[in-house]
């Protein structure tokens, strides 16, 4: 921009989730020169989903690093970088490729603060697109948040819309602890939303009531929030008022919001695309049972991915939780 240009900064921008991620990265890098980006194809290519597009040009190779192809290397060196004063934001190309880095994440990243008695800690973010429904090859559709949720020491955020994507990512980057930031690639570009042009944060551990309701609570996160909203619309036509709770961060979890809504409606359906067994739905269900047993009018229902290897594209549509499945589970709860 020329120095003479008289520009009025727009108050809001219409952004997709992918663009909102980029906006947060850019503004946080402008705010804090310790913020650096590492990953495969994040530089010149701007990331395979273009979430880092233009950042190499703006910030240079010392802050936006196309790394060798090695996830353990990326995360392990980020530990060192973070210990030595940087705030690395790592991109793992797909959740299905984070496994080489699990040793670093589980054995080191999650434990550093605790095992050094708080003398060392790791302000770093590991971003990764997750989830199915995009007709991708093997290993490109996984939703393995449970691995991280069952690893004490990691925070886990999963935005469902552009506003939250920007605000949660900014909060993640400013967080003093490591954050796994899972981006719903199915809806990376599915819709745009008005997003404040200014930097802002969305506080971790605050769920969002996406729709208020009285008869039933649908709990979801990430790409499944839209599925829950679609189901709520179908139910509305039948005169059922469903509340939709978007968790936004899974750890920390907004326990009050979950329990509060469960107590209010007495019926809960949890939706996630990760496999059902030992998925986050099981944790939520247990939590609700512990705190709202007497207010429950039906067993907590789970609509989840099946307990199978994520299928190849030809039949993946049958794997993904659908609004119809959520409606069926809701009816089961209503008719219990």
């Amino acid at each position, binding site marked *: 921009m020329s120095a003479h240009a008289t520009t009025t900064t727009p108050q809001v921008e219409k952004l997709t989730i992918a663009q909102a991620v980029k906006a947060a990265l850019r503004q946080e890098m402008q705010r804090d020169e310790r913020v650096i980006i590492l990953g*495969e*194809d994040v*530089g*010149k*290519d*701007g990331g*395979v989903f273009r979430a880092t597009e233009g950042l190499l040009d703006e910030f240079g190779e010392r802050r936006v690093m*196309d790394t*060798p*192809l*090695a*996830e*353990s*290397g990326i995360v392990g060196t980020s530990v060192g970088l973070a210990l030595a004063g940087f705030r690395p934001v790592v991109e793992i190309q797909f959740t*299905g*490729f984070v*496994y*080489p880095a699990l040793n670093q994440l589980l054995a080191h990243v999650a434990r550093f603060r605790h095992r050094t008695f708080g003398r060392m800690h790791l302000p770093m973010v590991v971003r990764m697109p997750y989830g199915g429904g995009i*007709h*991708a*090859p*093997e*290993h*490109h559709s996984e939703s393995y948040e449970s691995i991280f949720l069952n690893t004490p020491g990691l925070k886990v955020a999963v935005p469902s819309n552009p506003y939250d994507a920007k605000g949660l990512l900014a909060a993640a980057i400013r967080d003093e602890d490591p954050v796994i930031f899972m981006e719903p690639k199915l809806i990376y570009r599915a819709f745009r939303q008005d997003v404040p042009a200014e930097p802002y944060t969305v506080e971790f551990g605050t769920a969002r009531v996406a729709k208020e309701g009285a008869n039933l609570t649908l709990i979801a996160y990430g790409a499944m929030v839209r599925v829950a909203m679609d189901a709520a619309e179908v139910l509305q036509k039948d005169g059922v008022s469903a509340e939709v709770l978007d968790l936004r961060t899974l750890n920390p979890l907004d326990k009050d919001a979950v329990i509060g809504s469960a107590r209010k409606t007495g019926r809960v359906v949890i939706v996630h695309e990760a496999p*059902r*067994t030992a998925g986050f739905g099981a944790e939520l269900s247990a939590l609700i049972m512990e705190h709202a047993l007497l207010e429950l009018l039906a067993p907590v229902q789970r609509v989840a991915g*099946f*307990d*199978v*290897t994520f*299928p*190849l*594209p*030809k*039949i*993946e549509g*049958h*794997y993904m939780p659908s609004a*119809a*499945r959520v409606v069926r589970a809701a009816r089961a709860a209503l008719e219990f």
Partner: protein
Amino acid sequence: MPRTTIYEAQTIRLQILMPDGSVDRSLMPTVDDGQILALYRGMATMRAVDEKALKLQRQGRMGTWAPLRGQEAAQAGVAHALEPEDWIVPAFREMGVLIMRGVPIHHIMTYWVGDSRGAVHPDFPRILPTAVPVGSQLLHGAGIGMAMELRDEPHAAVAFAGDGASSEGDFHEALNFAAVFKARTVFVIQNNQWAISVPFSKQTVVSSIAQKAHAYGLPGIQVDGNDVFAVYVAVKEALEQARAGRGPSLIEAFTYRMGDHTTADDASRYRTKEEVESWEAKSPIARLRLFMTAQGLWDQAQEENLRTEVEGLIEEEVRLMESRAPLEPGSMFQHMYADLPWNLKEQMESLQAEVAS
């Protein structure tokens, strides 16, 4: 002697067939005309399959495809050196190897349209399925080679990967295990200069992958990967060593990915047209054709016949692929375990009820 040299090394590059079609006679392998024609036919088929797959993808009849254009010689040379009892451990761009080993083209395509029935072929129990997690399969290749060594079987495993894979820990572990256990494994690294948008120069500061073999104590050689004779000679020798229990080797086929990384990629974002064109001049197929023509083995009429024949073959293969009965949704529950546990049974029944309604 406080300072002594404890190790010295050099790395060889092998080239036999030049881009102009001339050959270094002293290095030429003993291949008869029939073999040369088979190599050419294989490479031409790969090229045609690749082009067809890209066309199908644009029409929505193919899933994500990883084009192998430019790497035909690297794949044909290896495939030709293999024996039926050898094991093949592919990464994800080795459709050419499979084609030349006789795996039906419609079967290969079945996998890439997103149907898991195409993952492995019953007639080829020693060809492993595609391995997408970069570099991970190299360890499987090392392990199979260890099994051949432990049982003293006169067969070997060929494990494939790309230049990008050489950065993964698994690559280094595989070379080390193979060397330590004298695995009957040949590692073939197709250095096509790019790992999606990351050039080889950013993967490592050394100038070859072949030289990395020194650190693990196995022979490493770089061959002109667009020279089918060089690839064939190097792999044949390495396989003979491996099958005889004389240890593993690493072969770097120095080549070029002429196409996008996959149909989901746009290579023009990160590399120049000039660079791509400079490699077009080193085309593996054109140089073999020049050689064959100079030898009086090939003429325009034969070229046209071959083209027509291959096109016909591929049309038929696509027809076979597309006329297959659709994959049952319930198949996702099959083969998760040897038997079907209660939770999968419940879930399968609920899906079947949903599909039926």
